[in-house]
């Protein structure tokens, strides 16, 4: 296993806690808006690190470009759907939770 592979594994391992904390946030946060915060932000960074880790292990530049493109597309999809879910919740007059 060469040096680049090790960097790759390190980055992928680094990305996993973000996915975990996104899910923890989803379970622990009180309302739809705060849960969206947890999901979009944590997963975006988690996926970014995993993509970066995989890019270090890729055999060709085409694979690297493909990985980056996947990250970008997921980023667009997740921020757009996050906004749509939140705006639908606002339309339905779901009040954001606020600390007592």
């Amino acid at each position, binding site marked *: 296993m060469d040096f680049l592979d090790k960097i790759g594994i390190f980055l992928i391992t680094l990305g996993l*806690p*973000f996915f975990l*904390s*996104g899910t*923890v*946030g989803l379970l*622990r*946060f*009180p*309302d739809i*808006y*705060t849960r*969206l*915060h*947890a999901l*979009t*932000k*944590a997963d*975006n*960074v*988690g996926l*970014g690190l995993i993509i970066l880790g995989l890019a270090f292990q890729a055999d060709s530049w*085409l694979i690297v*470009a*493909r990985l980056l*493109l*996947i990250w970008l597309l997921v*980023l*667009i999809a997740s*921020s*757009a759907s*996050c*906004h749509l879910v*939140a*705006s639908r*919740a*606002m*339309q339905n007059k779901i009040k*954001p*939770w*606020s*600390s007592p």
Partner: protein
Amino acid sequence: MADNNTTRQSPLVRRVLRRFLFLALIWLVLCGSEQASWILGLPAVLIAVLISLMLAPYSEFSFSFSGLCSFIPFFLRQSSLSGFDVMRRALAVQPDINPGLVPYTTFLPQGAPRIFFVNTISLLPGTLSAELHGNEVTVHTIDKDLAIWATIQNLELRIAYLFRIGPPVEVKK
């Protein structure tokens, strides 16, 4: 808005061709040069071109290259910070949140810049765009004690630079 477009719009053929090539390139990168993949890819690209023409007939805005170069590091840094921020709040013994809504009025024009703005807000630390009505954005923040307004304004100015939009005074008519 409409008056501006007529002077800058390029012919339909050119627009279709440009979008087709752009989307075909995306398919090529995603699926490789496998010829059989185009059985699905070609219709998908054509449908995407059609939908893009229906949703945004004109591409009215141009990108500034230096704007893009300064935006990418800013975005990567901010979105990593937002990941750490949410992680810390989610894993705290008592979830560390103090959410609230913040109204914001943007000077960014309708279309690509405003959509880009609203989507990027959701990836910055502590903010999430909850609603968009005209130029009024309702931002949901996970912590009312954060400097939300400054964060959003910084983002707004960077996006203006990215899309070559002048400062707010010049945009007002």
